[in-house]
């Protein structure tokens, strides 16, 4: 036991130790982490914001700001996104690919996820693992191999829009499977068992119980597929047949290498907004659908209330 005389006076705080204490005080706000996070955010976001800003520049310069205008979006009769046929085509082609990708990859991925999550026999583990392969395979490798496949083996596919759609679907399916399978594991088998218990055949259990419960995951994965498809460069480029099948990223790449105009920034901004909107919409839908599933503290309180009422 220590007596009062044994208790040492606190050491004098130096300027250094005080500032260190301000950063790392374990009882205070985690200031160091906050600073670190903001530093990263600025590093990552500022270049993007500057690129967006210059899409609204009133002159042809992408470095000198000369006032706000929307000429690079639709005002300029030749070089704006709206009027330049190559940019407009690229936008249409990108949207076409992304839409087709969503419509094809999502249903296939959902069914694969259900199969993989509910299949527990021999071979299920390797198959589940293999589904991650497209996520880790370098895109350039996949692009080259698909090109070889479509030009040498399945020559009826060739290059162009169908090949691009097939390529996008190939790697998108994995994302759908991973997202939907995660949801399947978190909802467990209990609802299907309850449905069967109440007289629902496996098909009815799927359509009346499982699919409604998977809706948030299905919508979220559709949003992610849309976003990654519209962003894709490598596979779209390898499987493009040039001209009309060039997508926005390909156009941006080409334009930046040749004679870049703020219209390049404008179309990039359009892409970014599309991606953000789809991902945000997916997130909001997910939240809205799963709202009832995470309120443990409220449930506990209500339970106590019910116990009082009945007691």
């Amino acid at each position, binding site marked *: 036991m220590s007596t009062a005389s044994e208790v040492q006076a606190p050491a004098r705080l130096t300027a250094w130790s005080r500032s260190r204490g301000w950063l790392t005080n374990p009882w205070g706000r985690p200031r160091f982490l906050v600073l670190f996070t903001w530093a990263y955010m600025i590093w990552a976001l500022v270049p993007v914001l500057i690129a967006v800003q210059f899409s609204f520049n009133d002159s042809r310069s992408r470095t000198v700001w000369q006032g706000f205008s929307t000429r690079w979006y639709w005002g300029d009769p030749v070089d704006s996104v709206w009027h330049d046929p190559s940019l407009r085509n690229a936008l249409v082609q990108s949207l076409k690919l992304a839409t087709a990708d969503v419509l094809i990859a999502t249903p296939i991925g959902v069914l694969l996820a259900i199969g993989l999550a509910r299949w527990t026999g021999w071979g299920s583990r390797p198959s589940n693992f293999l589904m991650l392969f497209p996520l880790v395979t370098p895109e350039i490798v996949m692009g080259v191999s698909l090109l070889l496949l479509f030009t040498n083996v399945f020559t009826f596919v060739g290059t162009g829009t169908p090949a691009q759609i097939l390529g996008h679907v190939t790697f998108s399916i994995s994302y759908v499977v991973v997202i939907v399978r995660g949801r399947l594991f978190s909802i467990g088998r*209990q*609802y299907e*068992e*309850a*449905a*069967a*218990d*109440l*007289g*629902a*055949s*496996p098909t*009815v*259990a799927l359509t*009346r*119980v499982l699919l*409604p*419960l998977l*809706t948030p995951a299905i919508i979220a994965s559709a949003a992610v597929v849309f976003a990654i498809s519209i962003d894709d460069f490598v596979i779209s480029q390898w499987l493009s047949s040039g001209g009309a099948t060039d997508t926005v990223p390909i156009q941006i790449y080409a334009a930046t290498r040749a004679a870049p105009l703020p219209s390049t920034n404008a179309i990039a901004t359009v892409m970014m907004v599309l991606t953000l909107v789809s991902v945000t919409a997916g997130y909001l839908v997910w939240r809205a659908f799963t*709202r*009832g*599933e995470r*309120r443990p503290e409220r*449930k506990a309180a*209500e*339970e*106590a*209330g*019910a*116990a009082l009422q*009945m*007691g």
Partner: protein
Amino acid sequence: MARGEILLIGLSKRFADVVAVDSLDLEIPGGEFFSLLGPSGCGKTTTLRMIAGFEQPSEGRILLDGADVAYTPPHKRNVNTVFQNYALFPHLNVFDNIAFGLRRAKRPKNEVRPRVEEALELVQLGGLGKRKSSELSGGQQQRVALARALVLNPAVLLLDEPLGALDAKLRKTLQIELKTLQQEVGITFLYVTHDQEEALTMSDRLAVMNNGRIEQVGSPRDVYEEPETLFVADFLGVSNLMDAAAHGAGDAGCRVTLERFELEAGGGERDTTGPAKVVIRPERVELERRDDPSGPNRLPGMVERLVYVGSAVQVLVRVATGEKLQALVQNTGQALPYEQGTPVQIHLPVDALRVLSAGERAVRQEPETDTVPA
């Protein structure tokens, strides 16, 4: 024959190299409240899941009102389940949850509504049909799960620890409600629980399970008062188990010796000889003063500890044989004349003392259904 009779014959379930249920034989007459009681991993839930149809038996037969349903898929069996965590469909409201089964059975609309409302009234949730299940308390969710299963008027209702997620007070209330409800609707309830108090309070009969086998079947009173195996004696309530040597039948029961003390045990296997255990419930142990007149079945001891538990006082006594014994003395408001170190005389009444042979497995050879009153 009452509807809802269950007959399990040689029912087994193996998962890889684990035997979850080991050739179970059990007969449950229609209209009974029957519990499967046992520690976790004893196979009780697997048994229930096989009857529901979620697991396929490795061997054996499941007869439901005489028809073998072991290989009938769950959606074609006339049994319904109340799940441990209710499994209410989160995308449907209370009404649609309860109507789910009726709609699958293609009942006409003008029949569905009154039946669902009747079921809601039955579980005292009238008027809550429009709520989402996530807007209900745990106790209310439990009632919806019950209504959802009962509305289909099954032959058997299976309940898998349905009160497990609720707090103690609510659990007590719902125990009584469940029992009342079962008597009202008159169908067979098969109730799985690890809570001995639940099983004893509600059941007409219960089976105590351990390691995939049934240890004992009987009324709550039979199982509690006359445990047939050491496991049952130990699992149900607090038991005093003491090593003894048995010497076969005497005047009032089996003659047993605990070291130099000779006792007679009126219950259990009265003809047994050799190493055995004697069992007595704490509430049946009688404490006397050391200088009280001696008599049969009395042992000297010393109070080691008093534990106040509210309604009673637990007295831990060190018996002269060296073993510890627990006595439960009802709290009558008067101070006990004991404290730590008080020498006492322990009376183990003949009829309260049971002898069980130490070779645990040898005890149970007959089919459990023998103890069933016809």
